[in-house]
C-alpha cells in the first residue's frame, strides 16, 4: 500500500522525530510513503492569519500536485492536515473554486478537490489490523491523549471523531498497551501559532495543559501535532511538571519495538528517556 506523504515544514525541522517515527512506523507496517513532489508550505500560520485567498491557494496547490496519482495524502502535522482539508472543501465551493484554482495554477480543480487527506491518527486507526497483532512491547504507561485544536475540529470539515470528546487516540493508546488517563485538556489549545508573538500567553496555556495531565496521573503526553509538541516542550513555564511529550508514532514505534525507536528521543527538548525506558513494562 502506498501513500503520498506531505511532511510540511515542521517535520523537516522542529519535529524531526515525528518525521522519522512516521516513516519508520509506515515502513514497519508495509505502507510505502512517497513525498508529494515539489510540495510547498500549507499556509497554516502566516497566510492563514493574513490572506484568505493565499491561505487556500497554497494548500490547493499541494492538492493539485497530488491529484492524478490516485494516492491518498498523509499529512502528519495537524495544521497542514486541517489546511489541506479546508482547501479541498473550498475547491468544491463554486464561489471560491475559480479564484483559488487561478491563484494556485490548477488546471483541474475538481480533481484536486477529490484528493483524500489523512492524518497519521486516521491512517493508524484505518490500518489497525496491520499493527494490532504486532504490539510486542505493550507500553504499560499512563498517557494523556492530546488532540489539540486542529486534529478533530471543525467537525464539519474533519469529523472522523467526536469534536468535543474525541476518543480515537485514547483507544489507539489502549491498543498499544497504555492506559489513557481521563484528563480535561484533550482538545484545549496550546497557544499554537502565537508561540513567537505572545510567548507569555502560550506559556500560560501550556502550563495549564501540563498541570492537568500531571494531576490526572499521566507519565507522558501523546500528541499528533508538531506545534503542540514544540510548545509543550519549549514554552513550558518554569514550575510546570516536566512531563515528556511524544508523538503518537513514537509510541507506536516503541510498542511495536521498531528498530531505532528509542533513538528518536534525543530530538526532544524534554528528555523522554525515563518513559522510553519504562515503556514495554505492560507485557
Amino acid at each position, binding site marked *: 500500500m502506498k501513500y503520498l506523504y506531505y511532511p510540511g515544514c515542521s517535520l523537516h525541522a522542529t519535529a524531526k522525530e515525528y518525521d522519522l517515527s512516521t516513516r519508520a512506523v509506515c515502513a514497519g507496517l508495509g505502507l510505502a510513503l512517497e513525498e508529494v513532489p515539489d510540495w510547498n508550505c500549507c499556509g497554516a500560520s502566516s497566510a492563514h492569519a493574513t490572506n484568505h485567498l493565499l491561505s487556500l491557494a497554497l494548500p490547493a496547490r499541494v492538492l493539485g500536485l497530488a491529484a492524478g496519482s490516485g494516492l491518498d495524502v498523509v499529512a502528519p502535522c495537524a495544521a497542514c492536515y486541517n489546511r489541506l482539508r479546508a482547501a479541498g472543501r473550498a475547491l468544491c465551493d463554486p464561489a471560491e473554486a475559480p479564484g483559488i484554482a487561478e491563484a494556485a495554477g490548477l488546471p483541474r480543480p475538481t480533481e484536486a478537490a477529490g484528493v483524500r487527506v489523512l492524518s497519521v491518527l486516521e491512517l493508524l486507526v484505518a490500518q489497525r489490523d496491520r499493527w494490532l497483532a504486532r504490539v510486542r512491547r505493550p507500553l504499560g504507561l499512563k498517557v494523556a491523549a492530546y488532540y489539540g485544536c486542529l486534529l478533530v475540529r471543525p467537525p464539519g470539515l474533519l469529523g472522523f471523531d*467526536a469534536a*468535543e*470528546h474525541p476518543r480515537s487516540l485514547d483507544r489507539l493508546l489502549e491498543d498499544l498497551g497504555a492506559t489513557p*488517563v*481521563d*484528563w*480535561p485538556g484533550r482538545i484545549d489549545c496550546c497557544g499554537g501559532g502565537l508561540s513567537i508573538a505572545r510567548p507569555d500567553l502560550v506559556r500560560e496555556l501550556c502550563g495549564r495543559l501540563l498541570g*492537568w495531565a500531571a*494531576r*490526572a*496521573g499521566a507519565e507522558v503526553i501523546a500528541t499528533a501535532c508538531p506545534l503542540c509538541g514544540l510548545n509543550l516542550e519549549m514554552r513550558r513555564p518554569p514550575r510546570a511538571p516536566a512531563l515528556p511529550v511524544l508523538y503518537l508514532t513514537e509510541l507506536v514505534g516503541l510498542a511495536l519495538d521498531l528498530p531505532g525507536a528509542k533513538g528518536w528521543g534525543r530530538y526532544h527538548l524534554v528528555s523522554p528517556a525515563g518513559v522510553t525506558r519504562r515503556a514495554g513494562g505492560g507485557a
Partner: protein
Amino acid sequence: MAGPTGRVLVLGGGIGGMQAALDLAEAGFYVYLAEHGPAIGGTMARLDKTFPTNDCAMCIMSPKLVEAGRHLNIEVITDADLISLAGEAGRYTAYLSRRPRYVRMDKCTGCGDCAEACPVVQPSAFDAGLGKRKAIYKLYPQATPNAFGIEKRGMPPCRATCPAGCNGQAYAALIAQGKFQEALDVVRRRVPFASICGRICHHPCETECNRGQYEGPVALAALKRAAADFGWPGTGRADPEASGPQEGLQPVAVIGAGPGGLTAAMDLAALGHPVTVFDASGQPGGMLRQAVPRYRLPLDMLDRELDWMLSKERLSFRGGVKVGRDVSLAALRAEGFAAFVAATGFPVARGLPLPGADLGRVYLGLDFLRQVNAGDPPAVEGPVVVIGGGNVAVDCARTARRLGAQAVTVACLESRDMMPAHSWEIDEALEEGVAIAAGWGPKAITAGGGNAPAAVECIGCVSVFDAAGRFSPVYDETKRQSLPVATVILAIGQGGDNAFLAEEGVQVTRAGGVVADPRTGATAAPGIFACGDAVSGPASAVEAIAGGHRVAETVHRYLLGLDLEAEAAGEPERARPPAGPVPARRRHPVPLSPAAKHARDFSEVSLGYDRETAQAEAARCLQCGVCSECLECVHACQREAVNHADCAQDLALEVGAVILAPGAESVPVARGEYGYGYYPNVLTSQEFERVLSASGPFAGNVERPSDGKEPRKIAFLQCVGSRDVGCGQPYCSAVCCMYATKEAIIAQEHIPGLQTAIFFMDMRAYGKEFDRYYEAASAEHGVRYHRCMVSGVRQDPLTKDLDLTYVDDGGRHTEETFDMVVLSTGLRPAAPARLTAGRLGLDIDPHGFLSGGGLEPWRTQRPGIYAAGTVTDPKDIPETVVEASAAACAASRLLASARGTQVKTKEYPPERDVSAEDPRVGVFICRCGRNIANVVDVAGLVANARGLPGVAYVEENLYTCSQDTQGRIREKIEEHSLNRVVVASCTPRTHEPLFRDTLREAGLNPYLFEMANIRDQCSWVHMHEPERATVKARSLVAMAVAKARLLYPIPSRSFPINQSGLVIGGGLAGMTAALALAEQGYAAHLVEREPDLGGHLRHIHTALSDREDPQALLQELRERVRSHPLISLHLSYQVRAQEGYLGNYRTTLAPTGPGEERVVEHGAVIVATGAAEASAPGFGQGADPRIITQTQLEEDLGGPGEARAGVYVLIQCAGSRSEQRPYCSRICCTQAVKNAVALLKRAPGARVFILYRDLRTYGLKEGLYEEARRLGVTFVRYDAAEPPEVKAGKVLTVEVEDTALGARLVLEADHVVLATGIEPKDNNTLAKILKVPLTVDGFFLEAHLKLRPVEFAAEGIYLCGLAHSPRFIAETIAQANAAAIRAVTLLSQPQLAAKGITVSVNERTCTGCGICLEACAYAARELDEETGVAKIREILCQGCGACAVACPSGATQQKGFEQGQVLAMVEAALD
C-alpha cells in the same frame, strides 16, 4: 343526518388531557381518555415541585388522577395509540390500537408482588434513567390506573436461536438474582436435560448473543449448568405454562430413551398420556450414556437427571427391550398403545472399506466410546491415529489419551478450519496434547508385526465437498505421508437401525434413517412418528430435544383427532440490544480442571462456575427482550392477573370530537454537549427534577452521581436545546427559566448552605407572580444569576468536579468550579404527537408543533379535532390547563345538542335506616397480597378485632379492594346486618371512595365507613419491625372501630341550579365567554360599563401573525354577541351588589349613567373586567408629541397614513418591573418586536432601536425576535439601575448605558415609543361584592395558580382575560373559553349536591365571634346579624375543617370528625 355523538376522545393523559376529560365528563359527555403509556399523569407526574408556589406537583395533581381514574363517565384506555379517524365532526369513528399490557387490569390490584419477584432490572425512564425498575412495573407509585404492566421488546436472540427454545435470558436473569432453583425450572420448561445440556450443549444461543458484539457472549451453557448445579432439584412448583392433563388420553410407546425420545415422553406424560419408553439398552440415556465421554458428562449427573425424568407421573421405562426384535409393534398395539414415536437414534458405527481395516486394534469410533463408557475399554497402544474430523473423532482421541496413549493424532480430510468438530472441543484436545493432521485422506492401513497396524498411509486432500455441497473429496496424489500407528480408530460415520419400521410402511433411508416430516415428525404410516437423530442423522442433543417437543405436539394432536400441524405462529420479533452505551463487562472464563491438562483420567474437565461467578456472569446479560418471560410474576400473582399471551387489540370508538393532548418531551442533549454523557455530574433538568423528588431514585436526597456526596455548588445552564439554531431548536421553550429558578431554590432547601448559579441569556419570568419569584430567588435565597453563556465545562479527573469557563458580568474571563451542572433542556412535541398529527393529516410547523389554529391555537384544520397543551407550542402547566379547558369548551359547543345523551348514571338502592340499631361493625382486614401480610400478623389482627366492642363480623381478605371482595362485603353486610364497616388496608387517599361506594351499593349511608391505614403507614414504614408493626396495626384497627361505632349517617343534600351565567365585562374576554356559554345552550347576561362592546381590543390592530386581524375579530364578535338570542346585553351597567351563592345568585346592576337598576338571577359568574394600559411617568410621556406609547404606535401602524421613516427608539419596561409595578406585563417585548417588524416592512428606511432589560419573547414568539434582528433592529440591553433617559428638547434624545458595550449611547430619535405595560383597574369594589381575593398587584387571584387558573376558590365564580393578568389575544380567548366550560360543568348539573363532610354549628353555643368567617377560604361561613350565629352555606363548604379548628367554643363540628368520635379514637389508642 343523525345528530352528533355525545362522546369525546381525549388523546393523552397528562395534565391537559385529564383537565379536558374532567371538564367534558362533568359537562355531560362520555369521555375516552386514551394514553400512549401505561398510566396517566404525563410530565407533571415527574416533576418535584411547581413554580411559583413551590407546591408538590404530585400532591396537587393526584386528586385529579383519582378523579379521572374513578369518574363514571371517563374511560381510561392505556397503552393506546390512534391509528386513524373516519367520519366527520360530530360523528367520528376513531380507530385505536392498544398494545398488550400482559396484565389484566380488571384483576390487578397494584400490590406489587409481581415486581418483587421479577428478576429483570431496568433503568426507569420515569426516573430519567437514574432509578431502576423491573420488567413488570407500575410507572410511578401513585399511577392511575393502579395496575402493573410488562415491557417486552421481542424475543431475545438466545431464545430464538436455541433449537429447543430454551429461555436463556430468563435463567440468566434469575441466576443473577441468586435464584438458581427458579432458573432450573425455566431451563426445564424447554430442556429437561438441564445438567446434561449445561455440560455438553454446543450452545448456538451464545453465537447469537447480543453481548457478543461487545466483549463476547454471555456464557449461557455454563449458566445452565450452574442452574442445575446449585438449583437442584428445582422449586417443584407447577409449571404455569403447562396445560395439564386433558381429554382424549391414550397410551403412547416411545422407542428409544435418548434425549429426543425422553423429551417427547416427558411432554406427552405432562399432557396426560400414559407413556412407556422402550430402549434396547438396559439403561436410559441413549448416546448420552453410551458415547459421550465421562470427562464431559459424569455418570452421576446423567443418572440424577434421568432418574428425575423417569420419576414423572404417567411415565414408565422398559429397558433391555429392542422393539422389532424382542417385541413387535403389532404386539404393542395389542397391548393398547395408540401411537408410536421412533426415537431410535443413529447408533450403528460405520467403518471404511480400507485395506487393513480388518487388522487388530483398528476400532470403530462409536463402538470404542461405548466400550469405554461401559467400563470395558479396548486395548490401546500408542501411537494412535483417529480417522475423522467430527466430534466423535475428537472424543475418541481425547479418550485414547486418557487410556494412556501418548501420541494421538486426529487425521481428517478437512482443513483445520473446516473440521466439523466444535472449535472449542478441538482447542481442548490440542491443549491435552492431541495432534491434528488436517487435510489428509487415509488410503490404507499397513500391518506391522502380526495383526497389529503399523502405519496409516495418507494422501493430501485438496477439497472435501463439490460445488453443490456433496461429499466428493479431491486428492492430490503427489502429497503423501505415512503416519506410524499402533492403534487406529475410525470415526467417520454412523447409521440407523430401523428396519423393523419398514415393515409397518415407514420409509427408511439407505443409511437406516426414518423419513418423516421435519416439522411434525409424522411418517408415512399413521400412528407412527419419529424424531431425533433417526430423522436428522447425527446431530446434537439440543436438536434431538427440539425434535422431541415437536413430535410430542404432533402425537398429542393425532390422539385428539386434530390436524397434525398446528397453525404456524408468526416469527416472533427479535429483540435488538438496548440502545445507548453498554458498560463493558468481560466474560468470566469457566474454570477447567488442572488435571485435564495431563488428560490422565476421566474426571470432569470443566469445573463450572461457583455461585458468585455464575451470578456475576449472568449479570452480563443485556436483557434484550426486557421481560424474559421467566414467569416468576405468574407464580407471584395471587390474583392470576398476569397474562403473557396478551396481544394487541383494535378499538373502534364512536365519538363526536377528538382532543389531542399528547404533551411534550425534553429535547435530547447531544452526547458530549457540556460533557453530558461523559461527565457523571452533568445532569439534565429532568434528571435533576427526579433527584429532588422525594419519590425519586434517591428519595429526595440530593447527591452527586459520581460519588454520592452532597453537592455544595450547583450551576444551571439555560437554553440547552432552546433558542439554539445550531441544534435545530430556534424557539424558546417557555418554561426553563422558571423551572431552573425553582430547582435552584428547592435544592437550597434540601442542602443548607448550597450555592447555586444560573447562567442565562434573558430571564423570561413573564407569567403571573413569576418576576416576584425570580426576585426572591436572588434576593432571599441567594441564587446567583449570570447573564452569559458558559463556553466550556471541564471535569477534574480526580474529584469529578466541573470547571466552568465564562465571561462574568464585568466582562472578565472567569473559571469557577462546581460540584454539579444541570442543563436546562428545552421542550419539543412528544414523539406520539408527531405520529398522531401525521395520521390525522394535520399540519405541523418545522419544529413539530401543531399549527393552524391562529387566535384559537386549540383548533386544528379539521373541524371537531382540537388540541391542547404543549402540542401547540411550549407552555407551562396553567396555560396547558387553560388550553385543555378551551378545547373541551370547543367540543362542548360542537356537541351541545348531544349533551347528557351518552353519560352513565349509577342507581343505588334506598338507604337503610340504621338510627334505631345498635352498632354492628364489620371489619375487613386486607393482606394486600404480601404487602401487609408479610409484615403484620393479619390472623392475629383478625382475632383481636373479634374481641372489640361493637364488632359483629371480621374477616381477612387477600385483596379487600378487588371486585369480588366488594361483592363479598355487600353480602356480609346483609348476612350479618352490619351497619358500620371498617376496612384496614392501604390508604384512604386512593381507596376510601371505592369502599364508600360499596356501602352505598349495599344500602348503607356511605359515611358509616371508616378506614385503618395499616399498609402505607404501618407495614411499609415498619417493614423491618414486624412485631411492633403488628402492635401498631392492632391499635389502628381498634381506633377505627371505636370511631366507627359513633358514626351516624350524613344525608346528602342537593340544591337547584339557575342554568344561566353572568359575565362581567364586555371586552374580548367577556364577549368570548358569553358566546361560549350561549353556544353551549346556556343563557348569559353580559354587563359592560361602557356604552359599547370591545374593551381594549378596540386599540389593537396587528396580531402576531399577518393572517389574523384583531379588528375583524372585534366586528365579528360584536355582531355575534348582539344577535345571539341567549345573550342579554347590559351596556352602560355595572355590578352594584350580589346575594345568594353557587347555583343561585341575585345580582343588582346599576346604570353608569341615567337609568334604572336591574336585578338578574343566574347560577354562575364570570369576571372579565379587563385591565388598562399603564402610564410611564419619568419617560416624558405626554410631554412631547414625539413620545408615544406602544398602543399609539400600533394605532398609527393600523391607520391609513404612510408609516413614517426616521429613528424610532422603543423603550421597554417603561414602568413595568419597577418598585411601583413589580410584575412583568408579559406582552410588551413581543408587541415591541412585532411593531418594529411591521414598521420596517412598511417603511424600510426606518431605524429601530429597542432598549430592553430581558427580551421576553417566550415560546414560538422567539421567531419574531429573530425576524426583527434579521431586519436590522438594534437591540440595546440596559440595566434596571440605570434606566434610559429621555430628553425632549429641540432634538429628542435618549441616553442609555449599553451593558454589552459598557458605554453610554446617545440616540437622536424622531420617535420614542414607551412600553408602559398593563395595570389592573380598580378591582377592589367588585372583589368585595363578589367576596373574591386580589393579588398584591391588584389583579384577581385565582383558586390555584397552576391547576385552577380560571376559577376562584369560592365555587361558581370564574375568571378570564386581563383581569386575571396581562396576556395576549389568543391567551385571553383561551381563558374565556376555559372559564365558560368550567361554568358549564356547574350549570349543566341537574342539581347540586353538597359535600357530605361539611361542618355543623350548635346554635346554642355559637357566640357569633366571627373567627370562623376569617378561617374559611371558601366564603362558606356567614354571620346571621339577627341571631348572632355563624351560619354555614352548606353548598360552598368544602369540609376542610379549618373553621372547626378555629372555633373557640366548639360550636362548630366537622361531620365525620366530631369531637366525640376523635376522642373515642384517642382512648382506643391509649388502651
